[in-house]
């Protein structure tokens, strides 16, 4: 009998290989294998684990242990829910593309990597899975062949920096603890010298926070998110970035738990908050829906980082809750934008317009996700934000609240922009024959929307596993109820009622407004505008969505002038010039090389007293 954990990885790996082979034979066969493989892995994950499974082995003299903790289970579940949906979506989204075998091979490998990360209870297998996840996602990021050099290399550089920071932390832990089991590390960590603790902590945090796109290490993310096929971005932004959050949670709560590291917590909380604010600003000024969502992802991850970094019971709970929700709504949004892209061929918000009547279901799922994203009741985003604000208030981070609240409000702007530009507004004649997205794309979107609605109204469904996970992190008595939450001051807050009241007000207002304006609606086209005597040329983009937020852009332009991106570019250029200079050492002159030999020899002779201590 094969170990159930091993079997899970085996299913994923087998699906990777089989879908590669299948796609070599025919696309239909490949797609069937992809869907069957994805769902069977997922079903096995939720059904196959009756008892806590464990798989321990020794590799190259390191003890390794696989098992899901109640904390990592949350993240594994997140992957297991999102990835089969994304793969189902993908079968239709990627129809007719080249080299699908490779695409799905890497897709499955990165799912395997994520599942592996969550099941690793030792650093060595965690790192191995981490790297598998990284390179497989890299291969997908550059899969479409767009901006390979810029985006792909940037992603790889930052991933490598993150991974190697992680690796350095891991080898230092190995030295200090003498074991790579995560539990051992937690147990013996407080006994390590303080400076080493600090070093290890910072290294691990850098490693994990790069994957969750924290400023100033986020620059890879916008390109990578918007460049990979949307079906993968749903998983990339929804689940893969959460692996960083998973690690941050482990490090902040379990490893740096001695209370001497509050400064680090503060720094990361602030970094997270600034990430949120800046990314939101960037999202607002984007004209490409994909880019907008990419920045929005970074922003949302910022909230989660704040929650994790604050490290109180409520904030962690908020962070995990937001992480799950973000996976659902951002996955859903990327899928919806992907559907728009698939049907119209563009995601430029100044071009695509008026799709609400053509793609109502896509609109519906976008709407639901946007509501969740913008933290409007009755959907779950509200609950998460509520908890986050409460935890910040309780831990007296008043300035942080201001920053986050600003960002949160600004998030309305881009949420509205994406909804309005793509789906509302005039209908363009060129989009006359657009049809609703095909069924395999719609089903995942609808399912995710339903998930959002249900968990938003009954957040308790999610609180149960989260509370279990909190136990692993050391918070043993988390107060939760199906709809009841106890805030930091001990007051009971009935979130469900709050949600319902606001929801009711919303619905009443909606009905009232639509009834009132029923008569006054009329359909207009782009050309149906007054042009003050000028006759617009056919190719002129008359969309009012150009410069949608012009005043706002002007207002925030001072802070956006010097981007992190350009700083990195400058560093990169400087290094390149330096490397080019170093290259001239190899002058090509044979005599020169011989001279180097002699010079080296003489130098050694001169320095022999220093080197050999004569």
């Amino acid at each position: 009998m094969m170990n159930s954990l091993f079997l899970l990885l085996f299913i994923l790996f087998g699906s990777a290989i089989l879908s590669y082979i299948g796609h070599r034979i025919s696309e239909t066969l490949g797609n069937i294998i992809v869907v069957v493989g994805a769902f069977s892995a997922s079903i096995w994950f939720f059904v196959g684990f009756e008892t806590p499974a464990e798989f321990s082995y020794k590799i190259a003299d390191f003890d390794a242990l696989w098992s899901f903790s109640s904390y990592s289970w949350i993240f594994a579940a997140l992957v297991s829910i999102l990835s089969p949906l994304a793969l189902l979506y993908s079968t239709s989204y990627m129809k007719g593309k080249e080299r699908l075998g490779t695409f799905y091979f890497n897709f499955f490998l990165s799912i395997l990597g994520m599942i592996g990360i969550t099941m690793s209870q030792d650093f060595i297998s965690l790192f191995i899975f981490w790297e598998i996840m990284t390179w497989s996602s890299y291969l997908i990021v550059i899969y479409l062949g767009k901006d390979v050099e810029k985006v792909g290399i940037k992603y790889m550089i930052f991933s490598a920096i993150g991974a190697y920071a992680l690796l350095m932390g891991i080898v230092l832990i190995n030295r200090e603890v003498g074991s790579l089991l995560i539990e051992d590390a937690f147990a013996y960590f407080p006994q390590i010298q303080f400076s080493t603790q600090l070093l290890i902590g910072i290294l691990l945090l850098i490693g994990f926070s790069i994957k969750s796109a924290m400023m100033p290490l986020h620059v890879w993310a916008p390109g990578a998110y918007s460049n990979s096929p949307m079906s993968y971005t749903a998983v990339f932004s929804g689940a893969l970035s959460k692996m960083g959050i998973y690690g941050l949670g482990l490090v902040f709560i379990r490893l740096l738990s001695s209370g001497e590291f509050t400064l680090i917590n503060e720094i990361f909380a602030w970094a997270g908050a600034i990430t949120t604010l800046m990314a939101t600003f960037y999202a607002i000024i984007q004209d490409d829906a994909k880019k907008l969502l990419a920045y929005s992802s970074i922003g949302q991850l910022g909230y989660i980082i704040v929650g994790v970094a604050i490290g109180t019971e409520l904030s962690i709970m908020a962070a995990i809750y937001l992480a799950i929700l973000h996976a659902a709504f951002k996955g859903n949004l990327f899928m919806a934008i992907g559907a728009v892209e698939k049907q119209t061929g563009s995601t430029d918000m100044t071009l695509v317009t008026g799709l609400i009547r053509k793609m109502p279901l896509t609109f519906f799922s976008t709407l639901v996700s946007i509501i969740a994203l913008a933290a409007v009741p009755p959907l779950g985003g509200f609950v998460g934000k509520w908890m986050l604000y409460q935890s910040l208030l309780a831990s007296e981070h008043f300035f942080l609240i201001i920053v986050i609240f600003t960002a949160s409000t600004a998030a309305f702007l881009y949420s509205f922009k994406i909804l309005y530009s793509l789906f509302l507004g005039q209908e363009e004649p060129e989009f006359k024959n657009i049809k609703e997205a095909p069924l395999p794309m719609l089903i995942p979107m609808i399912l995710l929307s339903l998930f959002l609605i249900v968990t938003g109204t009954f957040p308790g469904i999610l609180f149960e596993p989260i509370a279990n996970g909190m136990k692993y992190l050391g918070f043993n008595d988390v107060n939760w109820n199906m709809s009841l939450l106890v805030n930091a001051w001990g007051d009971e807050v009935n979130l469900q009622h709050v949600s319902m009241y606001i929801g009711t007000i919303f619905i009443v207002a909606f009905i009232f407004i639509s009834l009132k304006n029923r008569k006054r609606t009329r359909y207009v086209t782009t050309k149906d505008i007054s042009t003050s005597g000028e006759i617009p040329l056919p190719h002129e983009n008359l969309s009012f969505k150009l410069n949608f937020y012009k005043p706002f852009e002007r207002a925030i332009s001072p802070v956006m002038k010097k981007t992190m991106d350009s700083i990195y570019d400058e560093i990169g250029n400087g290094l390149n010039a330096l490397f080019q200079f170093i290259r001239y050492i190899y002058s090509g002159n044979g005599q020169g090389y011989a001279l180097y030999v002699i010079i080296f020899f003489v130098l050694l002779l001169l320095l022999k007293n220093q080197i050999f201590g004569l």
Partner: protein
Amino acid sequence: MVIADPIYYIVLPLLTAFLLPLFGKLYKPLIGIIPGFVFLFLAYMSVILMIDIRPDNPIITKIAGWTPPFGINLVFSSFSGFIASLISIMGFLIWAYSYKFKKVGFDDSLKYFILLLLVVTGSIGIVLTGDIFNLFVFLEITGISAYALTALYRGRDGAEAAFKFLLIGAFASSMILLAIILLYTQVGTLNMAEISVRMHEVDLKIKVLIFILFFVGFGIEAEMFPLNGWVPDAYSQAPGPIAAVFAGMVAKAGIYALVRIIYLMFDLEGAFHLLLIMGVITMIIAEVVALRQEALRRMLAYSSIGQMGLIMIAFSFNTEQGVFAAIFLMFNHAIIKSLLFLTTSFLVYNTKTKLISDLDGFGKKMPLVSLLFGLGAFAIVGLPPFSGFWSKLYVLIAAANQHMEVIIALILSVSVVEIIYYFKVISRLYFRKASEEIPIQKPSLNSSIVMIVLGLIIISVGVYPDLITGLIENATTSLLNKDLYIEKILPGLAEIIN
């Protein structure tokens, strides 16, 4: 009953090399087939010998019945045996890859096989010999055949590369010879074990001088900066499989000699510091220069230097873990870099300039070769689950245990650079449209098999490193246990002298 004796490593290829023209006279294809049998036998013998070898029972062959320290002896210990086996197996694979090399005619293939046999003889000789002068002779055999191999192709700038190689190589051999002379005046023996025992009699200043001479001399073969000017030229101009020979054998023999000198003969603490410093400098400079290369082969050559730097760093820790990591790296580098060079030779086969930018879209045109190149690239930058990851991990662990955080950070930063330039190539191979029609060279069956075998080794060691760690552990013990080495070669001598 198989006759397995280390002496055959030397005798057989040497003899075959000299007889090969005669075989060629008899029947032309024999010049390709006979070396194959020789390499196959050597590889087979390596397996036979390695099964029984343990750190405490090295095989010692006395040449011509002269007992050490008077005669020359070959020592097949766990360490030297491991490297010798690696070289002979690589020799067989490279033969199998190239035995039907079509680009050259009969004369040139004859030269090619003779020189290949000689270079293998020389490299294995350097590794196995227990006599310092003998080591010099083997170094020269390796050197001369390597110069000639570099210049094998007339169409390229091989002669230029070979001349530079020769110029630096001649300096190296002069320095080593001078060191041997000085050493001989001091200890009156050439046997490495006895030198080791008598070393403490030598005046420290002279000892350091001798050491520096050796260090510079072997540093050239070991591709140490700034002695490695020949490397990119020779690697890029030599025939493809020969670049693999350089990376897999010559450089390995060079670093082996360096390590033997440092670990066995000289008990200088400063030697390890020096090796560490030079290793770091070598690694950093080579990797950053590799980043700016336009030609694929040169890039690989610089990457190879960088790896040698890393090996030096690992050896310089002078701990069990460090040596273990270093030997693991030597193994990995031999396998992976050979795979990279072998695949590269097909990738750039039909381009005149051999630039990286010529490779656009080759992933589609040559799926197998590109895939294997990608595999090699993934492995060499140390991505799991491929074999390169484990050796890099062990280096880092060894460094961490020596409390060298800065070194770890440097190694990892350089690895980022490494990732950048390898992934640039991969993204060109797979994610660019083929710009113009460059005709492809279909890999022949035998070379495909060789490349696949190398790829399989990389994957299987990567997934299950325990396949090889046992052997490496034995090798480590054998290298670090200097007294055992001396005692086995010269029983009782240490007591007599001390």
